[in-house]
């Protein structure tokens, strides 16, 4: 694969802006740190050896390239567009998060810092970062909302086993956004020897650009693979959008292909009207704002206080959205849709039974939109769904969503065996 340094139509403009969005709104304390990071990243991405070393690591350690899988059973079921799936679930650690962390890890090595910190919500990015840190011999602290720690114990367990220090964040809503704040605070103190491995395409410049750069490996691979498999470009590309990193990554491969419609899918939760959702753009409920270091569209009240968000998929449950995506939305290049929890569980069920694939609950959002729209396309059209991660990490949530009795019995028995 060629180096995408020059393939950056989305390279940010003045001060890291994408149209109206982006920038770097951080305490003055972090000013030099971000400047240092920008310089290191700019230097790295202009060095052909860097992208090569990245592709090499992703290939020998993380299992890339991930395949594109044609799903004949789903295609026949919906009777329209041919459905292809990009298999980020096959990455080491089970999600696209691996791309970003390994990329930033290589950059950390260039910068010579011995420690990394990261926020995590669902725990995926925390496990990925802890994995990278173990592999590259870095000290690692993971900030995770106390609420999320309680819900996502399996990931906490693995982070600890991988040698990371998991710190419970007891502020605010005690979820992802508060963990990001906690990281920014740690970093304001520790920047001399510490890099903050932000987990998605949000935060201050250069994070949105840098994370998109590393995640663009998804889109570049997928574009070539779709051409190989079908002889043409897909009609539409679907990706779920939490912060927006997997979407930005896969969309990056098709941004110049104006015939390809790009569809981002946000968490509709219990329905936009219920107020329990995370649909910042699709729901029309988001407002421009500045928080956690960047300007974008946030779920906030009239006075700029961030609102509680909700999704069955912990990884989508976040107030903001990557500034590049906010801009692409504003420019009409990316269409945004939402999927409710119940649609997601249905799509997950169907995908498991029809294809033997277990998408993460996050990824299943993208499937919902593809399933909704496939019937109205023709069999001459191919659509690509980005399966950002695997769902077996979600067993506690999925089993609960399905009300599985066998599972409940198992947990009860297990708990009884732990009674002293």
């Amino acid at each position, binding site marked *: 694969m060629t180096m995408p340094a020059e393939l950056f139509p989305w390279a940010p403009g003045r001060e890291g802006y994408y149209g109206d969005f982006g920038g770097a709104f951080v305490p*003055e304390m972090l*000013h*030099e740190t971000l400047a240092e990071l920008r310089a290191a990243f700019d230097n790295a991405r202009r060095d052909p050896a860097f992208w090569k070393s990245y592709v090499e690591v992703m290939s020998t350690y993380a299992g890339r390239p991930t395949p594109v899988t044609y799903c004949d059973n789903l295609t026949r079921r919906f009777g329209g567009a041919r459905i292809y799936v990009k298999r980020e679930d096959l990455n080491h650690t089970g999600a696209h998060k691996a791309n970003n962390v390994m990329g930033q890890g290589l950059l950390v090595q260039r910068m010579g810092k011995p420690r990394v910190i990261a926020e995590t919500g669902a725990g995926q990015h925390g496990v990925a970062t802890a994995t990278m840190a173990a592999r590259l011999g870095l000290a690692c602290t993971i900030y995770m909302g106390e609420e999320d720690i309680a819900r996502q114990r399996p990931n906490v367990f693995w982070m600890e086993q991988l040698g990371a220090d998991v710190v419970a964040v007891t502020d605010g809503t005690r979820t992802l956004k508060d963990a990001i704040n906690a990281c920014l*605070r740690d970093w*304001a103190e520790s920047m001399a020897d510490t890099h903050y491995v932000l987990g998605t395409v949000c935060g201050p410049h250069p994070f949105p650009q840098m994370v998109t750069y590393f995640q663009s490996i998804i889109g570049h691979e997928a574009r070539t693979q779709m051409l190989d498999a079908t002889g043409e470009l897909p009609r539409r590309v679907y990706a779920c959008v939490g912060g927006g990193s997997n979407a930005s990554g896969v969309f990056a491969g098709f941004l110049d292909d104006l015939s390809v419609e790009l569809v981002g899918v946000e968490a509709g939760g219990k329905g936009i009207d219920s107020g329990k959702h995370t649909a910042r753009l699709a729901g029309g409920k988001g407002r421009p704002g*500045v928080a956690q270091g960047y300007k974008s569209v946030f779920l*906030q009240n009239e006075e*700029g*206080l961030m609102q509680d968000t909700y999704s069955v998929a912990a990884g989508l449950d976040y107030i903001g959205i990557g500034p590049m995506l906010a801009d692409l939305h504003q420019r009409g290049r990316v269409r945004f849709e939402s999927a409710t929890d119940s649609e997601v569980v249905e799509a997950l069920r169907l995908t498991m039974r029809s294809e033997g694939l277990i998408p993460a609950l996050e990824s299943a959002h993208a499937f919902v939109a593809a399933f909704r729209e496939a019937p109205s396309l023709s069999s001459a059209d191919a659509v690509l769904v980005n399966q950002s991660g695997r769902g077996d990490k979600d067993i506690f949530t999925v089993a609960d969503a399905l009300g599985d009795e066998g599972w409940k019995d198992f947990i009860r028995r297990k708990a009884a065996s732990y009674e002293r």
Partner: protein
Amino acid sequence: MTGARTAGLESHVRERLAKKPLLLMAHVVVGYPSLDANWAMLEAMDGAGVDLVELQLPFTEPIADGPSFVKANHDAIQAGTAWRAYFDLTARAATRFSFPILFMGYYNSVFRMGAERFCARLSEAGMSGFILADLPPEEAAELNAMARGRELDPILLMTPTNSPARLAEIGRQASGFVYCTARKGVTGRKTDLSQGVAAFLERCRTATSLPLGLGFGIKTAADVREVRGLANIAIVGTACLEVWEERGADGYRQFLKTLAAETV
């Protein structure tokens, strides 16, 4: 309207510095623990002879604050502290007390209010300026110009991590005084003032002729004494809040007095 504001913040600071070697700035998170408590705090400040006061508008994502202020922001929001309540309090305080009052908060509040409306409201409330913890100067040009048009001073921060070039850049844009953070990190944790602070303030002096405030981790009367000769304003934030919580209103009054005693 107080004389302080119309005279411009810098002149006010310099006038007072003519009378005493060090000024004292104290901090309140509006709405925490309650608006009534805030009023009692302000009266205590007034009684102790505090020279400047920052009133923080609570925000959900206070990325520059440490645990005590984060909790205060959160609880104040939970208690429903909105713009209206904030400006009611500041306006009452500006009328009642003689110290200049600064807005302190995060940029999203300003962004949502709109720069024009923000400046107007500060003006109307009789405030003297503002400190925005997450607004870098390169994003602030328009807001700051508008503010100066209303005789509001944007207070910029200088930090130990800034390069000389960056300090110079901040110096060029600053007015009123400069808020120097005594160490890296966020508010709240104690600072060892013997470690490089003097050298840092030297660098700040090179970058600006404005008065220098020193904040972050100044917690005791002894700390305030150490600031004497180093900077022009000792800024005490978290410590006030913690004393209020641990020792109540009387202890708070007492505490402010011991701090103020070190500034004369």
